[in-house]
């Protein structure tokens, strides 16, 4: 079958029984590919828009079955001063749809990050999970960036919405408005990420100025009829200054929306950087302490924003 956005799309995970990303118990669909490069990204294997090999060095015995199996000459052995390791030219992997290297691996060191799934298969999975959600529940598209595959997102949301399934999306907003618009009438809920109000800082943190993000946020706040909750990934020392907090609160209130969910950034994604051949840019990051979080929450509240910490969002 042709792998087009009409028939399906690229994802890297589906999680049932997710309890923090919308009302009830939900099924999360992780879209592959993201336009931003946030320093703290906790799903680095979701950044590239196509499937890729994931490599766990600690399990590798250097049998090199993968090397023999690869048809694209994408694999090379790197012998430096340290332990040997295997390198992938991931641009070449993009052409691959057979993943013979993963099949050839006998130690479990290689895995496949991301795959194409047809709408039919994905919907069947959602229908199965639906039995387990309970009274509320639904689907949340996340990633990666769901609106980076706009037709896939819209088709999936439409199918679910028409089947009376509660639909939510979590977006970074860094996409053309045309990517968002077709999905809107099939959506009940949007989480919209705000990372920094200052253009230069935003560029430093995410590799984009954030201009289009704020523009899309305003348009969404005006036109979207469902509930819209902003999300703020709190990165200590990088976006938690009082100045940025005031600016963020000011922006939220200017859109006419009032809700903000603070997500303290954590280190749990660190190991996955190595798997996908990337390096983690914030190794020295400290977790924000609980009392500090409450101080920030109080500050937002003073400024007139309804602010929720972590998983405490009332759904």
């Amino acid at each position: 079958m042709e792998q087009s956005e009409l028939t399906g799309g690229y994802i890297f995970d589906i999680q049932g029984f997710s309890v923090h990303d919308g009302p009830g118990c939900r099924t999360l669909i992780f879209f592959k590919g993201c336009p931003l490069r946030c320093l703290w990204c906790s799903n680095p294997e979701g950044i590239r828009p196509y499937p890729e090999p994931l490599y766990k060095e600690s399990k590798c015995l250097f049998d090199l079955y993968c090397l023999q199996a690869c048809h694209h000459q994408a694999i090379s052995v790197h012998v430096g001063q340290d332990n040997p390791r295997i390198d992938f030219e991931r641009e070449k992997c993009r052409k691959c749809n057979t993943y013979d290297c993963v099949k050839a691996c006998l130690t479990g060191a290689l895995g496949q990050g991301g795959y194409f799934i047809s709408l039919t298969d994905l919907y069947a999975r959602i229908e199965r999970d639906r039995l387990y959600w309970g009274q509320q529940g639904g689907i949340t598209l996340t990633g990666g960036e769901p609106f980076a595959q706009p037709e896939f997102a819209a088709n999936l949301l439409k199918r679910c919405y028409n089947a009376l399934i509660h639909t939510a999306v979590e977006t970074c907003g860094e996409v053309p408005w045309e990517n968002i618009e077709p999905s809107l009438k099939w959506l009940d809920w949007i989480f919209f990420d705000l990372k920094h109000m200052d253009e230069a800082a935003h560029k430093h943190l995410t590799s984009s100025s954030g201009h289009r993000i704020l523009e899309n946020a305003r348009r969404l706040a005006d036109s979207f009829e469902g509930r819209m909750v902003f999300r703020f990934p709190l990165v200590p020392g990088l976006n938690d200054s009082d100045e940025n907090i005031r600016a963020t609160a000011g922006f939220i209130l200017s859109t006419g929306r009032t809700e903000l969910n603070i997500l303290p950034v954590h280190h749990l994604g660190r190991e996955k950087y190595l798997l996908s051949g990337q390096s983690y840019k914030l190794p020295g990051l400290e977790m924000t302490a609980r009392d500090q979080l409450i101080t920030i929450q109080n500050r937002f509240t003073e400024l007139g924003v309804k602010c929720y910490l972590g998983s405490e969002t009332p759904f």
Partner: protein
Amino acid sequence: MESSSESINYYGNKPAQQVEDREKKLKPTERANTARELYFGAKSSASMEFPYWYTRRWDELDGEIPIIRRAESLKAGFEHLTPVIYPGELLAMGKASFLRGSYPMPWLSEAFFMAAEDRLYQEALESGKLTADTFTTVGKGGGNVTKSIGKVISIAGKFGLRVEEMPVMLEVAKRWKDRSVDDVGHKYEQMVPGYKEKEAIMRSVICMFDSGYTLPQGREVMNYYYPLQYGIDGVIHICEEGMNEVAGYPEMDRLYFYKAVITMLQGLKAWIRNYAEEARFLANLEKEEKQKAEYSDLAERLDHISASPPRDFHDALQMIWTFHVAVLNEDAISGLSPGRVGQVLYPYWKRDMDRGILNREKTIELLECMRIKFTEIDCFASMGVVGGVLSGNTFNNLCIGGLKKDGTSAANELEMLILETGISCETPQPTLSLLYDEKLPEEFLLKGIECTKAGAGYPAWVSNTVAMEFLLNNYGHEGMQMEEARAWAIGGCLETSPGSWMPLNLDGEIHWIPGGSAPATSVGVHFLSLPKILETVIFDGMDMRTGERIFPAHGLKLESYDELWQAFQNYFSRAVHVLTLTNNIQHDAWRKISPSLVNSMLKPDCLEKGRDLGQMGARFNTTFNVESCGNTTLVNALASLKKNVYDEKNFDLATYRKAILDNFGYHTAQETGSWSLIDQKPNEQYSEYQRIHRMSLDAPKFGNDDPYVDSLFKQWEDWFCEMTHNYRSLYDQPMYACQISVSTHAPMGAVTLASPDGRLSGTTFSDGSVSAYPGTDRHGPYALFSSATCWNHSQSQNSQLNMKIHPSVVRGREGSRKFLELIRAYMRKGGFHVQFNIVDSRMLKQAQADPDKFRSLLVRVAGFTQYWVELGKQIQDEVIARTEYEEL
């Protein structure tokens, strides 16, 4: 909202942040806390008092009618038990004169507790009776006496016996040689054609235990109606009237039964009064006014219930406890469930509350004392039974919820307090099971969630609907109808057991209380090791660990999957056939030599019929079953063979045979000292087997909603549940399937070579019956639920699903609601049972390293809750390796 896409991480888990503790913490009352501390310090202790007097009286009555002889011996035992009362006890009495006391019952079996060098022991070993013992570990911590210390000798690997009682034990044991249920049963079971095959099956640990003399009673629900309604004197009166009616008429056994019950009850009366006397004695000595008054009150209460029906809630609770212990003292028993105690006692409780003589605080104190008392129960049995089946647990399962006789919700306020004390006073006993029904109120269910979240592992959640369907299917021919099916409860760890509604008359008003009305379930064929049977199929009937032939060679080339499956069915059926026949003989010896009297007196309709349980005195008698172990390991192995040998032809069977014998190029579990697959280490042969091992591990695994393997699971279930009906129990009733592993998946795994699913030699099997093999359920709980419910659970007496959930997933109010939704979804999908460990794996690893700090840590194993430190290492490793569901 982080993806857990750990697609390349097979067995085992990741997280590395701080250890999460459980959420809810309540403290027990001062009184219960003191008692629990006392318990933590106590060792499992055996005494010879009861068996000495029992045996002495038995020998005096040579030639007497057996049931009378039995009654007199029980009476002598009870009369001579030294009463011990501990300060602060509101409920008194125990099995023996130690806090964690118990005693051997040589009239059942005398060989296993003899010293290992003794001749009797060697004989038992040769006949395969004790093979399971040698592969079982019991926990080294807690109250287990695993080594002799000073003047205390360790027996059966767990119990301490004072050195001066040792000669008594040996002498008493020798007196029962050739007379015990074990020895007599053994003499006659050899007359079953194919008996030699049975011995080979036991030696290979394809079957874990004989049934008739190990734990001949238990896995059943108690019924306290008769003593509650009539008092002991009232029951004696019923028996006297019975004697008058039947004396001289045909079916004279009824006369002896009534007479025996009277004799036994006289023994119980003396036993209770001895305790009353002791309480009075202590009251006289005691200087402190409050404690003095409590002793006096206890003395008066015990005197009262030694004759008359209870006057209030406290009396009724003491009465229930007394009869519970009395049954435990007549046989080696595990899984004696008190049943739906909160509903039985509710009329007393409500009346006291209405009268203003009881309040919530006092109730909680009493219920906590009850928890401690049930936790003190020890079961004296062989190491294989205590470690391998029970993990030191005695399975006194208390059920809450379910429906009333009229079909409305049975949950009540007293049950809310039972849940409350399950949180405040965490102890393994009584473990709780919540009989889930759509009609139960939300408040009650959320209280159950609160208790489950507290992390002690209870309540287990079981489906009322599935259980009733099972009961109506299997007991309909004995006259059970819908209304009576509602009276069921869990007997033992997870055995669906029939019950009946009893008309309790209080002040002229009838309260229909539920109580058990059948004898022991989980008697019959005990724990068949499915992966080991598959191993013999692959090796043409041989046990390759020992080189012994178990089954006759099938001589098949096994060229198709169907041929393999048929060969498996054939061997499995052979095992069930011979074990059913030999166990029927053992149980016949049991009912002749050691008939149940206390339990028979309690169960309807023994008193009405004038027959004991062994003569089908109970209302329902279809209780024998066939138990399986290692379901998921079997089906994963079959799926791997189907895929790699038959469908894709990646390897031939000869290659698999070699790989299995060489353990896929790994060191053995014994060498690595861990029984969990994740900890196993490759040896120099590894590269030869790397490919076949990887492809075996990569073959479809149960628990991922994969039709390739789930269809094989369903095929197994449909066949197994049906085939058991072809075998008849001692009571000429069809048998049925029972699917719980308890702890047998560890010792049975220990004697099984590597299996085609990639599991390595000696490692523990999958637990429960629909749990995934640890670490192989990689698509979340919804996929696991879908696999687990790919067949109809009401075909079987039970199914069992164990899950480990990280505390962070269910934290807070919102977490509670979502947790309930998860459980409810599984029940609606047709799941029978699910239970949870709400615990961080890293905490368990810390506890393994530093047991003293974690003395009170409770975890859920396969159907029961136990102190972590009292579990064998095999089971500890298995619990740690279970997939942990967490949010990140």
